[in-house]
């Protein structure tokens, strides 16, 4: 199975809010070309998009790896930002440390991580202050 795994890598620029989400748009296109169902594509791309936005607004950018095989789609988001001190609290709907300027851009409602969990089958967060954040999300096919 592993030799049939497709791997896609993206760098997520932390300096440019306007370009945030470009990787998710590309993944959406790739999955469409692979013939993945629209419902699954939507879940994957929303989860990845929220994660991408988080890396841009909270962590100064990062990278995204997407692994596709016959049974699942795995999204791994890695950044070297400030990390999340209290993951349980960060997972609560409405909890956000985003500054007001981010809110005026339409994000920072504290719904990103809960959305990512809701739209994927598994989500693991590894994070500690000063160590950055790695989020692994899996959607079963």
């Amino acid at each position: 199975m592993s030799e049939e795994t497709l791997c896609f890598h993206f760098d997520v620029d932390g300096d440019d809010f306007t370009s945030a989400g470009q990787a998710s748009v590309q993944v959406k296109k790739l999955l469409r070309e692979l013939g993945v169902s629209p419902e699954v594509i939507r879940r994957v791309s929303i989860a990845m998009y929220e994660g991408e936005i988080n890396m841009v607004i909270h962590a100064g950018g990062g990278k995204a790896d997407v692994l596709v095989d016959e049974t699942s789609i795995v999204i791994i988001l890695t950044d070297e930002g400030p990390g999340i001190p209290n993951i349980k609290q960060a997972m609560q709907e409405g909890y956000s440390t985003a500054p007001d300027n981010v809110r005026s851009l339409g994000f920072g409602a504290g719904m990103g991580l809960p959305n990512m969990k809701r739209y994927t089958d598994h989500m693991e967060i590894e994070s500690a202050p000063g160590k950055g954040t790695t989020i692994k999300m899996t959607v079963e096919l």
Partner: protein
Amino acid sequence: MRIRQIQEVLEAELIVGEGTLDKDVHSACGSDMMSDVLAYVKDQAVLLTGLVNAQVIRTAQMMDMICIVFVRSKQPTEDMIELAAEAGITLMSTEKRMYEACGLLYTAGLGNGVIA
């Protein structure tokens, strides 16, 4: 309701995307918070918003929405128009405020997906 009717009901100016005007849609969603839009997947095909930046287009694209209506005469930038054209998303702009625009569409029969 067809996208064309939405344009008529809101007396909206079409900015880009004539291609979808005859498509039929069944629900809409009105919000300035993109995370709220992303939180409620219900096959909404139309987004009404007062927010103007590239993430509005990407949010609609992620949600497979086909039309964005900017309220209060807000105008998208050239970059946004280009993104929308690539994504096959129709953009229009209406003078109406959010509350009125949603109310008009709801009254005209565009159903229950309206949130926020």
